[in-house]
């Protein structure tokens, strides 16, 4: 609802006309990514991801609960995101707002629809007891491109999560059963230029946003367009291509960082 910061827009658009970004990156280049797991000892899994100065911490808690009546033999997963006022002068305390809800739902669907967690292996007793997986995303420092940082932190946390079987007297702890992760890459467009991994400034002047999650087979696993601008069909194709390329590199780093 704020007035477009037109000076910032002009400056960045002018640079872009000359093929440049303010921080020297290529249009399809991510900032430096850091992935660190095992941050929170009370959590069953946790990871802190930095993309540039953006910093997201995801913690995974597990508990035992009842399955949904229509899926009596599958575990339950829930994703919540909080844009806590710690992370930005613009975030406010209180119940999650549209932005946080969209973020949580996009991360949630990216995990749920790609069937990343093998929820059918999380049944303890059909209709009675299943494992519940709580994915809580905390934005610690907001410097653009929340979607990819939140998604990557959640993947890293889930891939290093131990099912706390011992605490519930169900045998030894074991790793949460996980399939191949799809990697999310987000692009934004302003003044007819499309850039990958938007910085905070680029995020603020973005007219339209597209997040594409792709897997190691280069298949598309999820997409979400945001903001009130539009894409042409051709732009969408290019964004998909760039998302696959970047996804490949990020996937390698993810596996490396969790020691696989």
């Amino acid at each position, binding site marked *: *609802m*704020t*007035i477009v910061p037109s000076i910032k827009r002009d400056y960045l658009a002018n640079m872009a006309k000359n093929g440049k970004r303010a921080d020297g990156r290529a249009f399809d280049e991510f900032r430096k990514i850091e992935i660190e797991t095992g941050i929170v000892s009370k959590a069953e899994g946790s990871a802190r991801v930095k993309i540039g100065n953006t910093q997201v911490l995801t913690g995974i808690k597990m508990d035992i609960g009842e399955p949904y009546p229509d*899926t009596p033999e599958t575990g339950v997963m829930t994703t919540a995101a909080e844009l806590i006022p710690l992370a930005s002068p613009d975030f406010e305390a209180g119940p999650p707002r*549209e932005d946080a*809800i*969209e973020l*949580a*739902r996009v991360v949630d*669907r990216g995990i749920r*629809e*790609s*069937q990343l967690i093998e929820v059918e292996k999380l049944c303890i007793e059909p209709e009675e007891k299943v494992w519940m997986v709580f994915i809580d995303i905390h934005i610690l420092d907001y410097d653009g491109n929340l979607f990819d940082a939140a998604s990557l932190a959640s993947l890293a946390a889930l891939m290093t999560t131990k099912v706390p079987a011992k605490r519930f007297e169900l045998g030894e702890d074991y790793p949460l059963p996980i399939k191949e992760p799809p990697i999310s890459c987000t692009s934004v467009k302003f003044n007819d230029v499309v850039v990958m991994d938007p910085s905070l400034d680029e995020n603020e002047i973005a007219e339209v946003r*597209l997040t594409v999650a792709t897997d190691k*087979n*280069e*298949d*598309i*696993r*999820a*997409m*979400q*367009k*945001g*903001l*009130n*601008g*539009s*894409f*042409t*069909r051709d732009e*969408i194709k290019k964004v*998909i291509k760039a998302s696959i390329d970047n996804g490949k590199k990020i996937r390698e780093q993810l596996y490396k960082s969790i020691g696989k």
Partner: protein
Amino acid sequence: MKSEIKLFENGKRLDGRMPDELRNIKIKAGVLHRAEGSCYLEWGGNKVMVAVYGPREAIPRHTQNPLRAIVTARYNMAAFSVDDRKRPGPDRRSREISKVISEALENVILVEKFPRATIDVNIEVLDAEAGTRCAGLTAAAVALVDAGIPMKDIPVSCAAGKIEDQIVLDLGKDEDNYGSADLPIAISPRTGDVLLLQMDGHLTQEEFDKAFDLALKGCHIISDLQKKAILETYQSESGGD
């Protein structure tokens, strides 16, 4: 989630449709008395009512944008519109859908003409099958025309998806539940600009292209139905005078 139900029989879908066939769609504009613009739309088993109010002053004031109108779509499912009663009030799903529809509509409305105003688009899903967000956006566009809100184009929405490895148009209920991908889009039909795009599931790049083409085709068919509905209203209005 994806089980072993057969979704095709002799090349036809469960409800008898061909892969590239839409469900039945009926659109009627100007159906409400109080609203400044309205539209009732049936799309397969979906029934959607839309009412538009505005442009009027945005309240409270701190929500106003001094340079343009804000567009507030409010997608809501009636408690009785689904198999298991839904608790009244917005949930996370409806708030996300409200957001993406608001953004798509804002793209085509000439918001600069109405600084400090709000344009409210109330979308009530009375009966829900699959594809309520496409139905809601499509009906909202007609209601905006009915309200006389100036727009660059009349947006339109449709989905394609994948069931049993086939790309099909406009998923029905079981297809949505047991299919393997859903791709709802909304476009500005005059330019082909993409205003809404979401995808859940699993598509190869080739499948994505095919699904996207099919959804585009659906959009253009529905765009004609929108225009027909608008025309009928004008005619019945002049006929009534």
